């Protein structure tokens, strides 16, 4: 009896301990992956500044967010492709035109990738370029003001995904189309099934004026119909070349999930843009009809001019020798990334289980020896083995994107196996791998796409968050993960949430930007047509039913703050100038019933709100930005009289306010 009981207990204990043993065999979870000194490494004490700025794409938010690294603190969300009621961007009369396209006003965009302007392959801290995927556009953000100062639409393009990557001296920003479509010059009302014969791909080269940054679609390459995904500039020896990843070389037009994944290899398209430029200069490009918007902000009137352009220069790549070569690359490549030396080109096939690394030297040799395996729509396809430096074997599943440090290492993100992997570019050996939470898309090494990576930090931009933060209903934020990459092993330091969906992001040493910041706009240089440069210049001008109010704001009053003689049916424009010339003193302006969001007006700026009063009554307006101790006193009234009434136009502030009649 005793014996039996003991035996059964023994069996129970044995089973239990086996189960416990199995449990401890399960790999460690996220909670245990952070080591001791991580907190210290990301702690930026109150009042201290971060070492790097990170500019992070906002995906379907259409905006760009600015973070400090290593703290992961959010500084600002820059309005770029989406209207922003917080600042009035896209609502004010001055800024509405920035969101104009050939389709009219569009309040939203899908922002994926970013590039800093470069000089000699290094970030120069002047401008940031951002792409819009849905209605193809490229924006330029001035890093002195962090304002979007220019947006250009891309003709003949549909889904501007392979953009806005930049050449090593900022000669061109590129824009490769995701969707191939018929060009404007071709017949467009055609069956979708005519994809292979009638559709074309477009790769645009947008020139950047070296002084002003002003953009212009210099020329477009008309290519066989495929999808362009990502791209990167050559540098050093490969300067003058650009590398674009392609997929759907199957030319599928339906169920791409399956139909564009059939071929064992798609291509990286190597483009000799210097040669293309020569062809354009030699008059080989055709001037064709197009239709696209170009929006530029004037820096002294803060006003955006939008013009529609109707022509573009096109080079047909199949007709011209020496511009384009296809490099076979396994399984629908996403990233096409060039290492800091400019010799190695890394393709990341998102369905592949290896990473091919191509050699620029070998590519040039193969081109010279015409070592082709055939042609694709008239364009030579180089032999895979002739161009290959080697393959990283079993790196992980679903490689997406690769960046580099200054010590010959590459870092690749893996979506499917949810990890970042460090490997040596020359030896192709995997050095370290760390899990990410979860499913990284792009990753960023500080300066990791330039000739001189700063290294130190890597951020993985994750697509799935699930249990990482306090839940916020079914819709969760996306996330970033910061790693220290100074050692052999990558060390996870920090998780932080992001705005919208982060795709690519770029990081730059703070010193390259923070000393050039504009603090105020010099009011003496303000040449807005409706500026009032002092309270003495405030006035109201009626012209039929159009009423222009020249208004000023200064701590802590509005001039004029009593306005009478406005009538139902009037078209009223509040042209509001912030007279302050002091750092960090914006004023806001809004009026009850405004359908144009608010205005946020920086020192020395003038912004305009259009207001159409619909009801008789007394309507209050006020300053919306807590500017001073007497901010709450910064207010006024408009008297709206019935249409056709003869209330005289009277206005003023304090002693000059209209008195009883």
């Amino acid at each position, binding site marked *: 009896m005793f014996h039996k009981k003991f035996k059964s207990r023994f069996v129970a204990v044995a089973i239990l301990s086996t189960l416990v043993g199995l449990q401890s065999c399960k790999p460690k979870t996220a909670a245990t992956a952070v080591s001791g000194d991580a907190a210290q490494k990301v702690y930026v004490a109150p009042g201290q500044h971060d070492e790097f700025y990170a500019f992070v794409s906002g995906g379907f938010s259409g905006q760009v967010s600015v973070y400090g690294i290593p703290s992961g603190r959010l500084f600002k969300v820059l309005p770029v492709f989406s209207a922003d009621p917080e600042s009035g961007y896209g609502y004010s009369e001055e800024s509405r035109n920035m969101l104009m396209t050939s389709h009219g006003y569009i309040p939203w965009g899908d922002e994926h990738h970013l590039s800093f302007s470069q000089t000699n392959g290094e970030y120069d801290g002047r401008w940031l370029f951002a792409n819009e995927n849905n209605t193809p556009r490229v924006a330029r953000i001035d890093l002195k003001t962090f304002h979007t100062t220019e947006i250009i639409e891309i003709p003949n393009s549909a889904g501007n995904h392979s953009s806005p990557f930049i050449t090593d001296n900022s000669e061109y920003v590129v824009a490769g189309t995701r969707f191939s479509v018929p060009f404007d010059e071709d017949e467009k009302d055609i069956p979708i099934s005519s994809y292979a014969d009638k559709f074309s791909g477009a790769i645009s080269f947008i020139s950047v004026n070296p002084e002003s940054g002003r953009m212009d679609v210099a020329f477009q390459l008309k290519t066989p119909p495929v999808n362009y995904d990502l791209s990167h500039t050559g540098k050093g020896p490969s300067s003058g070349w650009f590398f674009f990843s392609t997929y759907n070389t199957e030319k599928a037009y339906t169920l791409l999930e399956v139909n564009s994944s059939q071929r064992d290899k798609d291509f990286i398209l190597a483009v000799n843009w210097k040669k293309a430029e020569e062809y354009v200069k030699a008059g080989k490009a055709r001037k064709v009809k197009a239709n696209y918007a170009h929006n530029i902000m004037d820096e002294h009137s803060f006003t955006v001019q939008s013009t529609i352009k109707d022509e573009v220069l096109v080079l047909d790549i199949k007709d011209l020798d020496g511009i384009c070569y296809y490099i076979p690359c396994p399984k629908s490549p996403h990233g096409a990334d060039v290492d800091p030396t400019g010799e190695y080109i890394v393709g990341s096939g998102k369905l592949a289980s290896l990473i091919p690394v191509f050699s620029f030297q070998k590519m040039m040799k193969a081109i010279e020896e015409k070592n082709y395996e055939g042609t694709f729509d008239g364009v030579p396809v180089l032999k895979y083995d002739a161009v290959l430096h080697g393959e990283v074997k079993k790196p992980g599943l679903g490689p997406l994107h690769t960046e580099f440090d200054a010590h010959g290492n590459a870092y690749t993100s893996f979506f499917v196996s949810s990890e970042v992997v460090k490997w040596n570019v020359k030896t192709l050996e995997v050095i370290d791998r760390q899990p990410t939470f979860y499913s990284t898309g792009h990753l960023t090494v500080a300066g990791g796409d330039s000739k001189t990576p700063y290294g130190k930090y890597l951020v993985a931009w994750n697509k799935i968050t699930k249990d990482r933060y306090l839940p916020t209903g079914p819709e969760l934020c996306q996330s970033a993960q910061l790693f220290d990459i100074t050692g052999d092993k990558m060390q996870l330091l920090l998780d932080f949430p992001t705005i919208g969906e982060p795709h690519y992001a770029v990081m730059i040493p703070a010193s390259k930007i923070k000393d050039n910041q504009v603090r105020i706009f010099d009011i003496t240089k303000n040449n807005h047509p409706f500026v009032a440069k002092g309270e003495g210049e405030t006035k109201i001008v009626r012209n039929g039913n159009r009423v222009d109010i020249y208004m000023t704001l200064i701590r802590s009053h509005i001039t004029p703050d009593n306005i009478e003689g406005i009538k139902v049916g009037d078209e009223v424009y509040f042209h509001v100038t912030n007279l302050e010339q002091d*750092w960090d003193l914006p004023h806001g302006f809004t009026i009850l019933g405004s359908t144009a969001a608010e205005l946020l007006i920086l020192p020395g700026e003038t912004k305009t709100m259009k207001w159409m009063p619909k009801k008789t009554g007394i309507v209050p307006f006020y300053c919306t930005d807590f500017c001073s101790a*007497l901010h709450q006193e910064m207010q006024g009234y408009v008297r709206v009289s019935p249409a056709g009434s003869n209330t005289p136009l009277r206005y003023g502030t304090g002693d000059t306010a209209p008195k009883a009649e």
Partner: protein
Amino acid sequence: MTTSKKNSLSRVTKILSFLGGLALFAVIFVPIWKIELDAPQYPEGLELKIHADKLAGQVDIINGLNHYIGMRHLSENDFIEFQFLPYIFAILGFFGVLTAIINRKWFFYIWGGSFIAFAIAAMVDFYMWLYNYGHNLDPTAPIQVPGMTYQPPLLGFKQLLNFGAYSIPDIGGWIMAGVGVLIVFCGFIEIRKK
């Protein structure tokens, strides 16, 4: 010969008077005094610089803030001193150089004495302006603290509501102080030298 030597200046006094005279010319072109202001909202600080002929620094910003307490607008036109101060410095500078050339004790004493008298008068004048601005406040000002005045210190630090005001000589003021010290030093030499 002996009387002439007795009434003439030592080499040190001549050199220092000459240099002091030149230095006083320089005062015309540099700020003489400065009032530094800082507050929780102004970690970067604000500065008012007083020259012989103008106000400099962030005058507009300071005026913008002063309107809350009803302090009079700082305006260059209100200061008649700006009209003639540069000439006084020029004359005093010229007399310093002349002291070295004329080489007479009595001339040195007149120059030194008038400079020191001028310096004292200037400080008194400055104090009176500070008093005036600090006390004559607009009775309808938005911020009124019973019993509170806003006179910045003549020299040194004083807390005025949320602003700390720190009043010190700027380059020109230090030059004047230096010249004053040299004059006293030289005067001492001349008196002792029989």
